[in-house]
């Protein structure tokens, strides 16, 4: 108990007491933010964190409890929506006014006039290419998915690689995201305007699935296990020529760990391809930010907020500049940020923040593997997606 008397001395951020407990996804940029926030622990300030890829399944039950298991959740424009729907987050206006002087206006996520989250990084999926391999087959970096197919075929025909391409097609949230991106690239609308009724069983939906299947011919047959953690080492081993990856993972690919200088030197981030003659890239814009639970004491909320403001400080940005596209002023964009910037300037749309989008995303993830494995037709798969979505949306009260 010696620490208690020196609480203020230990806690470097001006917090005397309180509970800070953070739930977050598991990738380097978020580790950097949460670890920086952890520096506020000490004395009678307790700190705990949980970085897990299953954060989205945990967040609802964990924040519904009173007091909530976690005082903060690192959210994205996708994962914040179920928490807003269930009213599990607290407005941050007071805390921003009191402790948020260092935050930029563009960082405040304002919903119906209330600040509900503080964004600290932008993210998007885009293509990365190996310049040396493209040079060998005499191709430039593809700007459309049709060119991706041509280039992949050229690389295969030249005998360089049998499976030159990968995207994040693990049969979970990842594959759902690829379907969402490709459908947006085709100019598709997910819902009948103004309603929660899915409308993906159409020509654009068929073209989306057919394009994904065509691409998977050039991806290792293991593609249904491919998430970032699986594809990054394959890229670093030099066994891929083109991959669709998150901007936040590019920094790890071009650092001096885990790969050879030849691969690193030739790893080039490019924008997200368009598809089927469309002008909008087949990708969605994301932000990651922090939000604070409603069912906790005001004291814990304040302590957590101060710690997380410390987590996104200029000091953190300077120490971790290339781990993400940070939204803070101290950020100096480098090579790893080029892909995300290109996606944003090419006019990509933010991921739709609709309360029932998560259910449709889940239906994509559950039904599309059957199609990619050749077990059923595109039309059948799309009909199954709409039916599975409708059932889920009825259970959740979004559809009658």
């Amino acid at each position, binding site marked *: 108990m010696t620490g208690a008397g020196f609480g203020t001395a230990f806690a470097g951020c001006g917090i005397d007491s309180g509970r800070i407990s953070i739930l977050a996804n598991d990738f380097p940029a978020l580790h950097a933010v949460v670890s920086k926030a952890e520096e506020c622990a000490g004395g009678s300030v307790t700190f705990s964190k949980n970085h897990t890829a299953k954060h989205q399944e945990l967040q609802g039950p964990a924040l519904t409890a009173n007091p909530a298991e976690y005082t903060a959740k690192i959210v994205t424009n996708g994962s914040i929506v179920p928490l807003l*729907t269930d009213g599990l987050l607290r407005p941050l206006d007071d805390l921003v006014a009191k402790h948020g002087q260092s935050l930029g206006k563009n960082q405040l996520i304002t919903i119906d006039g209330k600040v509900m989250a503080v964004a600290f990084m932008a993210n998007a999926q885009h293509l990365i290419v190996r310049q040396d391999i493209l040079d060998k087959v005499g191709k430039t970096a593809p700007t459309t998915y049709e060119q991706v197919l041509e280039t992949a075929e050229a690389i295969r025909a030249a005998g360089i690689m049998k499976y030159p391409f990968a995207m994040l097609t693990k049969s979970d949230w990842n594959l759902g995201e690829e379907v969402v991106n490709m459908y947006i690239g085709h100019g598709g609308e997910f819902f009948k305007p103004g309603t929660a009724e899915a409308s993906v069983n159409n020509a654009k939906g068929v073209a989306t699935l057919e394009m994904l299947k065509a691409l998977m011919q050039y991806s290792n047959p293991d593609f249904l296990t491919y998430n970032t953690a699986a594809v990054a080492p394959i890229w670093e081993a030099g066994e891929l020529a083109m991959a669709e990856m998150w901007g936040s993972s590019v920094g790890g690919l071009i650092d001096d760990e885990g790969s050879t200088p030849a691969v690193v030197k030739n790893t080039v981030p490019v924008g997200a391809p368009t598809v089927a003659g469309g002008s909008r890239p087949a990708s969605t814009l994301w932000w990651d930010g922090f939000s604070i639970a409603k069912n906790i004491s005001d004291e814990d909320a304040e302590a957590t907020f101060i710690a997380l403001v410390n987590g996104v400080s200029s000091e953190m940005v300077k120490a971790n500049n290339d781990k993400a596209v940070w939204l803070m002023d101290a950020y100096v964009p480098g090579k790893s940020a080029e892909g995300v910037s290109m996606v944003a300037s090419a006019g990509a749309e933010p991921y739709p923040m609709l309360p029932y989008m998560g259910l449709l995303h889940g239906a994509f993830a559950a039904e599309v593997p059957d199609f990619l494995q050749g077990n059923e037709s595109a039309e059948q798969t799309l009909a199954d997606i709409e039916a599975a979505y409708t059932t889920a949306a009825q259970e959740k009260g979004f559809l009658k």
Partner: protein
Amino acid sequence: MKHRTFFWFILPSLFFMVLFIALPIASVVVQSLFVQHEQVMVEVENCGPFKCETVIQADPDATADLRKSAPLGKYNSLKTYTNRSHLAFDELASIWTTSETFAGFVSGVYNLPFYKALFFTLTYTFLVSPSFLFLGLFIPLGVTRLP
């Protein structure tokens, strides 16, 4: 054993079995007849790092009021049991009327999540488990008979 002694002997165990097994099962059965309340939707102005836009969002306060007045949710009778994710009565009927061959019917049924899982479980029970049992017995028996 006297009935009285027996009763006191099993009482603690009976009590906890009712509390932790029987009551939760009853509670699940009751809850299975309900689904979530219809979400009250509102249009809100939503601003982020990329742009401001008007989006539809659920109104948690209005939904919370509904929940307070009827905590179990909206009564749905047995429809959760018969919906597409489970027994899929409507889908079965439509597959039966539209499929021309029996094989077409089977493949249509196989496309429904519950029946797919059921086929899988039955196949496992009647194919994999018996083979395990018989091969597990006869292979060692055969091996012991080798000279």
